[in-house]
């Protein structure tokens, strides 16, 4: 035991990279990443529910524009979308004078917009698949009770679709976390941005990136566990009784 603590002391004493200053950069990066991913997921979810309902609509003039939106955002790389929204907006003359500029000036909001639109597109398609997969019997039963379309959507289709969509949506959340690593290309100091800074400062790629990879792993584990817990609760009725 003393051996280990001695070894640990020597490890910390001989290390120039993980000082309070660089750990501070990592901490700020963690906060930025969690904020960015969480806010874009929440906003994306709020957008995706009505879009998914519209996307499942029988009326083509409702479903087609939504399909075009999801097709464009799922059909192009997130990095390109981020570049277009961050660097593209400044080519509108006079954007600096509009009320939008205080937001667009920061790297955070263009990144948030790009991530939100991207995750909303994927989530829309996940929910739309779940809505389409609603068993006919549930719908017929709801009609037999005399439910209106809106009531049936609210009480029958959406709750059952949410449950079915849960595993796929959990994946989307993890993908979003990992996709957020590109935010540092537009100067945002997220976790990856902090790692790139430490790497460039100390020419220490292994230390800088292994450390940040470990943090991403921890974040992914918490997301996995949260969704496993949620599935256990919400899908309890589907498990074999015994």
């Amino acid at each position, binding site marked *: 035991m003393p051996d280990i603590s001695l070894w640990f002391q020597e490890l910390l004493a001989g290390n120039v990279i993980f000082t309070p200053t660089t750990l501070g950069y990592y901490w700020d990066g963690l906060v930025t990443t969690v904020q960015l991913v969480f806010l874009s997921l929440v906003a994306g979810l709020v957008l995706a529910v009505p879009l998914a309902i519209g996307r499942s609509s029988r009326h083509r003039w409702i479903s087609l524009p939504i399909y075009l939106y999801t097709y464009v955002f799922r059909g192009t790389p997130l990095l390109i979308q981020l570049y277009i929204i961050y660097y593209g907006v400044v080519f509108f003359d006079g954007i600096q004078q509009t009320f939008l500029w205080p937001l667009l*000036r920061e790297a955070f909001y263009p990144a948030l917009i790009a991530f939100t639109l991207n995750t909303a597109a994927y989530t829309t398609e996940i929910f739309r698949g779940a809505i389409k997969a609603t068993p006919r019997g549930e719908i017929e039963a709801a009609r037999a009770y005399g439910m209106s379309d809106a009531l049936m959507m609210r009480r029958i289709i959406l709750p059952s679709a949410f449950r079915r969509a849960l595993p796929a949506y959990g994946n989307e959340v993890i993908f979003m976390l990992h996709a957020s690593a590109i935010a540092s290309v537009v100067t945002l100091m997220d976790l990856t941005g902090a790692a790139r*800074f430490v790497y460039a400062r100390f020419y220490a790629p292994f230390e800088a990136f292994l450390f940040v990879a470990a943090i991403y792993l921890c974040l992914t584990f918490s997301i996995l566990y949260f969704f496993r817990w949620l599935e256990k609760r919400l899908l309890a009725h589907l498990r074999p009784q015994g």
Partner: protein
Amino acid sequence: MKKLLTVSILGVAMAAGTAQARDYDHVRIGVDVPYEPMEYRGADGELTGFDIDLGNALCAEIGVTCEWIEQEWDGIIPGLLARNYDAIMSSMSINEERRQTVLFSDSYITIPGAWFAPAGSEIEEISEETLTDKSIGVQRGTTFDSYVTDNYSGVASISRYSTADDMVLDLQAQRLDIVFLEFIVGQATLLDAHEDQFQVVGEMVSEPEEYFGEGFGIAFRQRDTALAERFNEALATLKEDGTYDEIYQRYFGDE
């Protein structure tokens, strides 16, 4: 007979060689062109640049004639060792690795960093007060990044870019208030490419050495210590009598 001739020619050549090594009156200098504004061809096709002007001034001071020999960068040190020329004056950074093979003169310039802001910027000089709450752009991982991070990260926000081009775009877009980068790069990408839109703010920065390095030196063959010494003395003289400043202003002046 033939053999004797070869030997005697060799002997003469060697005698000439040693004589030359002792006392140069004609110095051939290797240079890799172009690298504006250090060495390049002007509109008239003549070699010009800071290295060229300073090199010619040094030769004049020493009292030797100078000849510039163009050489690609890859082969510039082998060319010196192969006696294609006697010195290299081509924006060569002094470092330990090169010291193993060549002899360096004293550093004759350290390429400065400079602050660039949009023309008419409210930042007129560089200090902690004027940079408070400003956003500064730097290239990630450069010495300029380290310098700004260590000096101003407490008061200003620092954005780090992979390329100078991205940084210029954000300076134009008014996302950045000011950028700090190698003067030469800034001159090419900001001052020359966008006339009248940008300006240099404050003094150029080339110290301390821990950030900006030892600077550029003239390289000689290891044994030419006497020649290197003559160049060092001439450099000191030119720095004293103002010739150096005059040449420096010609290429790195504010105007």
